[in-house]
């Protein structure tokens, strides 16, 4: 793969470069300890933990209801899905059925959040390759999704919208119309702007096609999940293989590609954006009337036991392992986060490649460091 074969006559020296945690392209605070031979990367060791906020420990000292805003902060780029995993785990321990309207609202918010998160991924990926215009396309439309969140729950990033037993509040009148209006405006832009500006560009093509190829076996070995695993040709979409909420009632496809390279990972996300839009349109039609919250006492006592819930977050298989000792506080709450696995694959993948490839590849995995460190 290397295009610079080492020259035996030339005495060269490898050097260490600590890339990050304050590097513009490490998506927050990832540190990559690189061993470089000029432009060529010899070895890479990812160091995580710079954003550790001990969310899981803090949760043990809060009531179950107080854990929801903390769960938001596990993945702040996709807060709806990370808090959804938490409340679903609590509900499973409580053996609670939640109103159908709440289920639909959860799916609507999760899919909107997936759009927002994938737009962010698209933007940062193209920015890391040096394209500022696609980056701003992504952010321009992400703002419009955040507007929808803001009118619903008042927040644009950390929503605190999921509740044990449903959601915090109903949608405002006309929300669905505004959502459909957004989809009508934005969906055509996917092909006319987003893909038009980079997909056929030979520079982009050369920098992503065949770069960072991850085989399916290696991907499974490192616990790669979500869109990144679907780019290696395996359907692991939790919404399909272990359906939760109302996903069985909704029609959508799971995009699969077999190349496993940077380009495939990017394409999977673009296709998922379309599928999310499809799900949202169905939800807007099917949304039932009724309660949005099965009310629970604030100091909620959860029966002793343990459970594991996994959902398909924007980044992949997000799991929440919850242990209850029968008190009003969780005994242990552990999150299984996709970005952590994706960071671990870097040491395998970032070898014998060029320095420029590193930013392209790491961005294509769509890692979010708060999720890695928690």
């Amino acid at each position: 793969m290397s295009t610079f074969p080492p020259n035996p006559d030339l005495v060269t020296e490898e050097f260490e470069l600590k890339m990050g945690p304050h590097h513009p392209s490490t998506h927050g605070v990832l540190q990559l300890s690189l061993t470089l031979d000029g432009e060529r990367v010899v070895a890479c060791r990812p160091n995580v933990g710079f954003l550790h906020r001990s969310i899981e420990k803090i949760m043990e000292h809060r009531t179950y209801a107080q854990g929801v805003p903390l769960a938001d902060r596990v993945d702040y780029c996709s807060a709806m899905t990370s808090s959804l995993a938490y409340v679903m785990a609590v509900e499973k321990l409580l053996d609670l059925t939640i109103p159908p309207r709440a289920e639909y609202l959860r799916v609507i918010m999760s899919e909107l959040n997936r759009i927002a998160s994938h737009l962010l991924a698209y933007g940062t990926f193209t920015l890391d390759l040096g394209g500022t215009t696609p980056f701003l396309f992504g952010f321009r439309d992400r703002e419009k999704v955040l507007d929808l969140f803001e009118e619903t729950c008042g927040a644009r990033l950390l929503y605190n919208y999921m509740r044990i037993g449903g959601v915090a509040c109903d949608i405002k009148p006309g929300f669905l119309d505004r959502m459909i209006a957004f989809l009508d405006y934005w969906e055509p832009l996917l092909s006319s702007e987003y893909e038009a500006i980079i997909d056929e560009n030979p520079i982009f093509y050369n920098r992503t096609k065949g770069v960072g190829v991850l085989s399916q076996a290696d991907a499974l070995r490192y616990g790669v999940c979500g869109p990144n695993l679907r780019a290696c040709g395996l359907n692991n979409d939790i919404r399909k293989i272990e359906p939760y909420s109302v996903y069985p009632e909704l029609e959508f496809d799971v995009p699969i590609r077999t190349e496993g390279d940077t380009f495939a990972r990017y394409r999977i996300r673009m296709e998922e954006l379309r599928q999310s839009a499809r799900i949202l349109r169905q939800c807007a039609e099917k949304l039932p009337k009724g309660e949005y919250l099965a009310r629970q006492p604030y100091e909620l006592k959860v029966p002793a036991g343990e459970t594991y819930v996994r959902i398909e977050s924007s980044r992949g298989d997000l799991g929440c392992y919850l242990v209850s000792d029968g008190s009003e506080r969780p005994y242990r709450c552990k999150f299984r986060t996709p970005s952590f696995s994706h960071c671990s694959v870097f040491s395998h993948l970032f070898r014998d490649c060029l320095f420029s490839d590193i930013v392209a590849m790491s961005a294509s995995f769509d890692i979010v460091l708060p999720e890695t460190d928690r």
Partner: protein
Amino acid sequence: MLIALIAIYAAVSVNALFLIWLERKISGRIQRRQGPMLCGPKMMAQKSMWLGGWFATACDATKLIFKEDIIPSKVDRLGFILAPIVVMLAAIAVYVPIPWSATSYHQTEQVTFAFADLNVGLLYIVAVPSLTVFSILTAGWSSNNKYSMLGGFRSVVQMLSYEIPMVFALMGPIILAGSLSLGDIVKAQTQGLFGIPFLGWFIIPSVIGAAVYFICAIAESNRPPFDMPESEQELGTGFNTEYSGMRFAMFYLAEFSNAFVVSSIFTAVFLGGWSIPGITPPPELNLGFCILPYFDLLVGLVVFSIKAYSVLLILMWIRWTFVRVRPDHLMNFGWKFLLPLSIANVIVCTVIAAVQQIYYGGLS
């Protein structure tokens, strides 16, 4: 002499500031940026979208001038201080032979309006910008920063890959015009090809050369998609990471000034410089639009500016459209594609020049 030097320096700097504003406007148009559209005194911004945004550039310049001059303690001071000066020097020096216009007023023959119409002008404009590479390498090395060092190395790699095709691309016009003087090259383009005045611009016989030069010119001025030495997302602005204040501003101004220079050279060498095909008379007719004193000079200046800025707008358009090239792809592209292409261009131009010489009489 000193006044002239200061005037040139001021003109180059003000032009570069204008270009920074223009670049912001273009990016604002392409990306729907609010700042470049509206930033500025309220009245002005509302009256005309085109005037909005100049305030940001003015603030930028003021900030950079008044910023504290920081020299990190571990740098190689001599190189660190010299690099931005040399870069600026090269950026200004390269303006010398560019033929802005020409006049026949009160002259026995058409005289090129340039700071100095060197008889080796084309060689000069190829040689002088290469100084930039030395200073970028010096800046990268002396900064004592690994990212900067990689940026400096990349700059050298890039120069080696594009400079040779660039020189070959410029060989075509030299053969066609039979001269290295930029003024003569422009004059040769007013004469037309095969007796047809509209074919006079060298972009027509040397279209491959023009394309190769244009690509190399982007690389030469370190602009995206060939901005590998400073690639913000990989190296954290590479060779100028450690620079701040006025020293950083010098790199920045030089970059924009170089962008203008390469589009001026493209205009002079391939787009007929100050001439309009079919309208501007050949120099030997010696008419020169003598309606008013120096009228031909003014028309030439306007025509030249329009052409040069149009080329510049294309450069800016490219900047906001493409993603960055990988260093090894650039080398492959330069050595395996541009170089053979530019050599083929030399052959094509030689044949055309020979046909022109035999059947339609000599060029200039």
